[in-house]
């Protein structure tokens, strides 16, 4: 078995690291029974069942290095969760291959499962009727966490996630946010080397989202775990991921630094200009997004930004001018709504 992570050869040179996660032409096609509404269609389906094949994930290729935290973005139904499920061995791929820590996830080797974790937001995996500490004991047994290490880890998680007073209550008595915190702590007790997070902050308030983000970031830094994170909250992505993979209609349309996303997909920049007296004909420079007496923000085509900025400086007594990429949320929203294909 290949062990993921960089290593040194005997002569001192560095051997290229094996990706913690990689896919090659990985695909998933669902066979879905379909029928028209109504009694007649219902009776007809008894005799002849119509099956439609839905390509949830078209051939995708990517690799995640050890310790890397990668955001996996896409609208609902893009194929994110299906990909995560294939990588954790929950779904059997229709084609291609994947490797997680050197293992084929479809084989669901215990040796692989011991070293990964899947956390799905808003799902309860702890025993509903018992305090989380009892479920943690089961985790300890399943993952064979050494007896001397286990209490230290629990104490640390209790401290970091502020779980005091939560872990000894039946899980059913906890709020959604509290439950998510104890869930995350339980899922990470065995210090997984690869962490798959599917909407971990779903439905949580801002404070709880921030706490969980911070915990995930610190945990990844402490343990060197690789993380593949899906989230509809761009704040999660911005806080945790330098690199994002964008999937749309089952295809990867972008894989690169988060900061380059706007360059790739946003055909415009925003110019915020401050002047003593703004020109009344601002729409001659670009699309006006917000404007008052002295400050205006405009959307300007990327290719025209320099020329427009020069004209502004020439036409008005400009006190300040700022040119920036549009917010990531806006870029992503635009990508998904326009159905851009990469």
């Amino acid at each position, binding site marked *: 078995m290949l062990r993921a992570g960089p290593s040194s050869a005997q002569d001192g040179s560095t051997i290229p690291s094996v990706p913690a996660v990689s896919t090659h032409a990985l695909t998933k096609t*669902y066979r879905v029974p379909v029928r028209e509404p109504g009694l007649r269609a219902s009776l007809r389906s008894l005799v002849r069942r119509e099956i439609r094949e839905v390509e949830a994930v078209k051939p995708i290729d990517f690799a995640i290095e050890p310790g890397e935290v990668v955001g996996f973005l896409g609208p609902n139904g893009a194929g994110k969760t299906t990909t995560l*499920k294939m990588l*954790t*061995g*929950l*779904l*059997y791929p229709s084609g291609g291959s994947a490797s997680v820590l050197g293992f084929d996830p479809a084989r*669901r080797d*215990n*040796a692989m*499962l*011991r070293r*990964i*974790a*899947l956390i*799905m937001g808003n*799902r309860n*995996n702890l*025993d509903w*009727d*018992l305090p989380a500490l*009892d*479920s943690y*004991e*089961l985790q*300890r*047994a*399943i*993952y064979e966490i050494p007896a001397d290490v286990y209490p230290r880890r629990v104490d640390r998680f209790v401290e970091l996630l502020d779980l005091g007073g939560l872990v000894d209550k*039946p899980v059913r008595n906890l709020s959604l946010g509290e439950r998510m915190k104890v869930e995350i702590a339980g899922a990470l007790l065995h210090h997984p080397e690869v962490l798959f997070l599917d909407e971990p902050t779903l439905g949580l308030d801002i404070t709880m989202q921030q706490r969980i983000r911070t915990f995930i970031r610190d945990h990844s830094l402490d343990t060197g775990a690789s993380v593949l994170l899906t989230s509809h909250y761009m704040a999660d992505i911005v806080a945790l991921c330098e690199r994002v993979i964008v999937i749309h209609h089952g295809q990867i349309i972008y894989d690169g630094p988060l900061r380059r996303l706007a360059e790739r997909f946003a055909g415009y920049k925003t110019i915020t200009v401050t002047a003593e007296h703004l020109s009344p004909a601002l729409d001659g420079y670009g699309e006006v997004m917000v404007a008052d007496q002295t400050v205006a923000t405009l959307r300007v085509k990327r290719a025209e930004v320099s020329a427009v900025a020069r004209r502004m400086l020439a036409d008005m007594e400009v006190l300040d001018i700022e040119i920036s990429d549009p917010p990531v949320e806006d870029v992503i929203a635009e990508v998904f709504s326009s159905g851009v294909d990469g």
Partner: protein
Amino acid sequence: MYWAEMRLSFQRTLQYRVATAFSLLGFIIEPIVYLVVWKTIAEAQGGSIAGYSADDFVAYYIAWTLVRAMNIALTPYVWDGRIQRGRMNDHLTKPFHLFHRDLASFAAWKPFWIMWWIPLAVVLVAVFQPTVRPSVIQFLAFFIAVWTGFILRFVILYLLGLIAFWTTRASALFEIVVTAELLLSGRLVPLDLMPGWVQTLAAWLPFQWTFQGPIEIVIGRTDLTGTLAVFGWQVVWTAGLGALLAFVWSRAIRRYSAVGA
């Protein structure tokens, strides 16, 4: 891991001790009806039917109560829920086969059931006063056969449950199998009272080794050879169906669509 899961399951059962007591009471009503009916018929027939005396029926159905409680296993209804709502995701990402976890979980309930059964058995013995007095050896053999019978029934129902991977409605077939089991296991009446063809059919199926087999050991209707045959058939069926289960599981898991989650 077995021990940890059993401990957790036992704690869970303790949370629902009243519900468990009521379930057990439910199990008592069914055999008492059978017991009264067959005892009355045997007495009306001059003391016995097909070699079963009125007293044998009393002993049979009192032992029945424990066997029934002990051979409760994971039903396909659970599988329907697991598959339709994608509730297996957490289990399948754990480095431990779900079968072992489920088996440990169900096995952990059994001591609790036994705890509740003892006072009920005392009441039944006091009311119906069976004359059968099993020896310590017979009782021990019965106790072991009940556990091995539970494992066999667990494997049978687990296999049935796996059909949910193909149909997502395994419980429909379960209803048919439960009816067959009722007739072919000795649960409704001892098989000796059934027509010859039913007994022949029962001999080709595993059900009687989960029910009547263990009961016959404790009520003294079988000798050493018969007792060994009960264990032998239990082992053969468990091994055979266990191998089939392993094969079906490997195919079933490829069909899991993790829907609903």
